[in-house]
């Protein structure tokens, strides 16, 4: 039996630089997996390969038993893998409402959006607490809000797996707590598998059931947040000082 997402010997080289070095891991359906590591460890590169933006130099990615490495990003999105971007540049000239609607239309194109699509947009806006901004132009909102809009748009496409790239960077503690709650409910109520890249340690330790630690493109540790936080190699490579989390 194959896992929900199966990454085998995944490798990416840029010129002579090895960004991702023969990594193998798998994700179970319904899981909340965190990927952490210092800057340049290969987290976003891994995301870009899963989402189809980069072609792996070697190795394969299988999703629901089908090989997806090498497919184009839009194909992968159509198969049910949504993503957000570290640097959010949302569709600035659209209203928040249209932004989310566009995601739905991208998956089921109608010349006139159907009543169900409008209902679904309303539902997503309520869920992500964006309803108050529905008629605002996206470009007039903060970067943090734009990342939420991108998340909402990804949710609208009805994904089974979401890749979240530093969704919480630059948020206040209160906002982080809110986002964590939201992500948990997305995971538990909507059954969406999450893979999260995050620098906010407290957040990722609280949210994820399992964490993979990358350093210089290699997986140096994986396990529960507690195991990872107490792992000697991780502490040396990444956390710097001995501290216990969670």
């Amino acid at each position, binding site marked *: 039996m194959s896992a929900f997402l199966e990454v085998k010997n995944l490798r990416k080289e840029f010129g002579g630089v090895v960004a991702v070095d023969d990594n193998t891991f798998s994700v179970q359906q319904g899981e909340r997996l965190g990927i952490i590591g210092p800057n340049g460890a290969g987290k976003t590169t891994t995301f870009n390969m899963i989402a189809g933006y980069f072609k792996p130099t070697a190795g394969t990615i299988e999703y629901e038993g089908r090989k997806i490495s090498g497919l184009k990003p839009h194909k992968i999105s159509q198969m049910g893998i949504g993503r957000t971007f570290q640097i959010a*540049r*949302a*569709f600035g000239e659209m209203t928040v409402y249209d932004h989310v609607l*566009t995601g739905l239309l991208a998956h089921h194109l109608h010349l006139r959006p159907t009543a169900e699509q409008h209902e679904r947009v309303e539902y997503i806006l309520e869920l992500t607490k964006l309803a108050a901004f529905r008629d605002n*132009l996206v470009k007039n909102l903060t970067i943090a809000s734009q990342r939420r809009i991108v998340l909402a*748009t990804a949710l609208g496409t009805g994904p089974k797996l979401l890749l979240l790239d530093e969704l919480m960077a630059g948020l206040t503690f209160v906002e982080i707590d809110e986002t964590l709650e939201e992500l948990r409910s997305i995971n538990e109520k909507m059954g969406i598998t999450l893979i999260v890249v995050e620098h906010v340690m407290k957040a990722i330790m609280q949210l994820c059931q399992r964490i993979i630690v990358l350093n210089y493109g290699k997986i140096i540790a994986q396990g529960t947040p507690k195991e990872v936080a107490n792992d000697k190699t991780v502490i040396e490579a990444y956390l710097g000082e001995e501290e216990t989390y969670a």
Partner: protein
Amino acid sequence: MTDTVLTKKQRQKRTRTRNLIIIAVVLALLAILPQVTSDYITYVAVLAIIYAILTGSYDLTTGYTGPLTFCHGAFYGIGAYASALLTLKAGFPFWVAFPLSGIMVFIFAAIIGYPGLRLQGHYFAVTTFFFGHFIYLVILNSVSLTNGPMGLRNIPPPEGFLGITFTSLNSSYYLIFIFGVIAVAFLYFLVNSGIGKILISIRENEELSQAIGVNTALYKVLAFSIGAGIAGLAGSLFAHFFRLLHPTTFAWMTSEMVVIMALVGGLGTLIGPIIGAGIVTLILELMRFAPEFRFIIWSVALIAVLIIEPRGLMGLVRRIQGGKK
């Protein structure tokens, strides 16, 4: 106080009513124009309508979908020559040559766009610039086919039907006017449909557009080709209205004019480029007394517009209304 606090629905309704009135007035004016004015002004109006179709279709590609192109005049020229040659050399009636020329330009643009649109931003813009010039050179030098710099003459007018003939100026004017309305209505429908939202998403952020499942390569080629196809149809109308063609009509200057008109009006608004086409055509005609100076004056005016309001006339309108930034 009460009338400043309008609900969103009421405000939308008001804007819609106002816009409908403006459109109705403009259409009515254009409809009676040949009856009440001189032939010269009718000719200018025909040019303005053809330019409006060109800039409107250009806006679909560049204003809504994003890629900057400098070859719209070439598609216009291919349509004009294709239609003229189909009637002159192959003996097709106008009513067959007209749609065929649009389809031919659509396919031609798809063949160019499919590899070309893999280039990003300026690289693609430069490619289209040279492509446009290449088409001009082909038209100029394929003497056996296009008669080269001598141009094509005696292009037949559209065949009449139901007792209507298109040999007179006025009836040809109405033909072009009606096609203009249909073309603009089609573009309006397209950019306001679900497809329009997808095109805008590509313009705003192509990477993110792919992430939400848009086949951006396909839609870019599609928008580019539809815009080109409509330009081809406009070219066909031009050929059968003026009944003579010369390569210089489709030289790089025409492509530049389309870009300028669209910029003056405001890219990505559809109505802006159409108004821009009207205004620029009018100014160019009014400045006919100084043909050497008009492009200089015009260039200075363009730079001034872009400094004052880079979003063009529609940007200015929005600023005056004090609405959304």
